[in-house]
């Protein structure tokens, strides 16, 4: 793999950039792999990457139905944070956030991780208490957060109206080392790194069946032929239920559409990410200058990746009230992504009833930021059968009544 650098660009510029090679290769699938990962989104590719990097397992295929990163990885609002309340969540999201800090250098692909800081506004006494509690938990979990007062909020985000007549800002949970990253780049960078390790990234390859022998997985059927494997990882947000069905089990998941939108680009006016749960909106400004805005999810099962209007309406009116300057900005584009919601809104990283078949799903609205951490833990789970990062996220928790509920601290699960 040719390394990317300013020098490489200068060199290529002299020959009109005709010398760049493919970022990742596009091979025909082989008949057998040690590990097959179904799903070429961020989590699938991250899993493959850490299988190689941490465990030296490189005889790996990543099968993608369409184009890599075409699911939720390419549809989210790019926020990276780890200020979660519950121990298991804080652990995996903080692992992820930590990995993001050096990932660009590790995979030689600029992910534009921008630790500009994330604040979650407290606009009711209830939220003040919830976020104070989270700050206390985070301190013991090794997550760097603090509860800040309204004046500090205003300093960090001058365009905010902290004295809103309806919900004055009473403070915020502030995570200075959280921020944003470039979602597509993560996929491309992981694909390039995996490809470089000799893994096969196979696009336009849809899995149509899962084979087993004696209760253990033996391979998959695809639109590009049968592929045998020793271990199988299912990492297909939005389609987990169908794949689980092929593997012979059911999931506590429902798929719904989540809404997002961006404004037209403007010059920088907001250097932090702001999430306002009371009024249901969150916003940051991309490096291009667009205000990136997250909306709500439909209440019903939905597989159309389309925008709806009333969620956008609710979000935009909240943000117009919180950030008066956006009233005269314009919405450029809105879209929807399909997210898998579990019974407790926390993800599933688990063994399954089918031997050597593992599933990583149910990230709901919080998948993007967990990508490297999820890949790290899931790879370990697949190799060792146990990972401290994933241990609490097993399927059995729903039977035992042992939920990981993040909504309790007025926390939003984005």
């Amino acid at each position, binding site marked *: 793999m040719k390394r990317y650098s300013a020098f490489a660009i200068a060199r290529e510029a002299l020959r009109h950039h005709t010398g760049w090679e493919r970022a990742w290769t596009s091979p025909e699938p082989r008949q057998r792999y040690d590990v097959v990962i179904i799903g070429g989104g961020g989590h699938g590719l991250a899993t493959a990457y850490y299988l190689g990097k941490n465990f030296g397992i490189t005889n790996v295929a990543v099968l993608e139905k369409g184009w890599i990163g075409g699911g939720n990885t390419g549809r989210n609002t790019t926020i990276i944070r780890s200020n979660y309340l519950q121990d298991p969540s804080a652990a995996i999201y903080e692992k992820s956030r930590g990995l993001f800090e050096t990932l660009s250098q590790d995979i030689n692909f600029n992910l534009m991780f921008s630790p500009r800081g994330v604040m979650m506004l407290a606009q009711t006494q209830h939220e003040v208490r919830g976020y104070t509690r989270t700050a206390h938990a985070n301190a013991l979990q090794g997550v760097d957060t603090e509860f800040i007062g309204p004046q500090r909020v205003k300093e960090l985000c001058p365009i905010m109206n902290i004295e809103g007549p309806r919900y004055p800002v009473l403070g915020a949970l502030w995570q200075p080392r959280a921020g944003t990253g470039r979602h597509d780049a993560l996929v491309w960078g992981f694909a390039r790194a995996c490809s470089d390790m000799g893994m096969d990234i196979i696009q336009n390859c849809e899995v149509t069946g899962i084979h087993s022998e004696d209760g253990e997985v033996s391979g998959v059927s695809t639109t590009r032929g049968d592929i045998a494997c020793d271990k199988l990882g299912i990492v297909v947000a939005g*389609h987990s*239920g*169908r794949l689980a069905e092929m593997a012979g089990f*059911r*999931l*506590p*998941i*429902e*798929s719904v559409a989540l809404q997002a939108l961006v404004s037209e680009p403007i010059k920088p006016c907001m250097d932090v990410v702001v999430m306002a749960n009371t009024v249901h909106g969150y916003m940051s400004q991309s490096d291009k200058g667009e205000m990136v805005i997250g909306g709500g999810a439909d*209440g*019903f*099962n*939905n*597989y*159309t990746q389309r925008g*709806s*209007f*009333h969620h956008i309406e609710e979000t935009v009116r909240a943000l117009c009230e919180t950030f008066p300057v956006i009233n005269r900005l314009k919405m450029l584009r809105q879209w929807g992504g399909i997210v898998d919601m579990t*019974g407790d809104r926390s993800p599933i990283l688990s063994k399954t009833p089918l031997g050597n078949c593992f599933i990583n799903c149910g990230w709901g609205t919080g998948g993007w930021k967990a990508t490297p951490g999820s890949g790290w833990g899931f790879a370990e789970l697949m190799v060792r059968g146990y990972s401290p990062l994933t241990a609490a996220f097993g399927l059995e928790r*729903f*039977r035992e009544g042992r939920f990981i509920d993040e909504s309790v601290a007025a926390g939003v699960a984005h």
Partner: protein
Amino acid sequence: MLQLECPNCGVTAEETEFAQGGEAHLTRRGPEASEQEFHDYLFAKENPRGVHFERWRHVNGCGKWFHVARCTATLEIFGTYSAQTLEPPREIRDRISKKRPGWSWREFA
């Protein structure tokens, strides 16, 4: 933005008048249920890409619950019907069969 007809008051209205209430035709499991039965009752939800049966409430309207047969891939509505029934009416199942031959959902087809 869906549009649904409430079978209780006859109004055809937009989604914002309604609230979705999850999977239809669940059998409640009480204290006698096994761990697996109780788990399935609460969590093992149908999540098909296609024909689906669900509950809605006309919350900004007559306040009543009802059932909807809907396609989750196209959002086509096959019909709405009373909440006070244990299974989809024959008429709606036949209509679905015409449009989605070979469909099945839980024990219904």
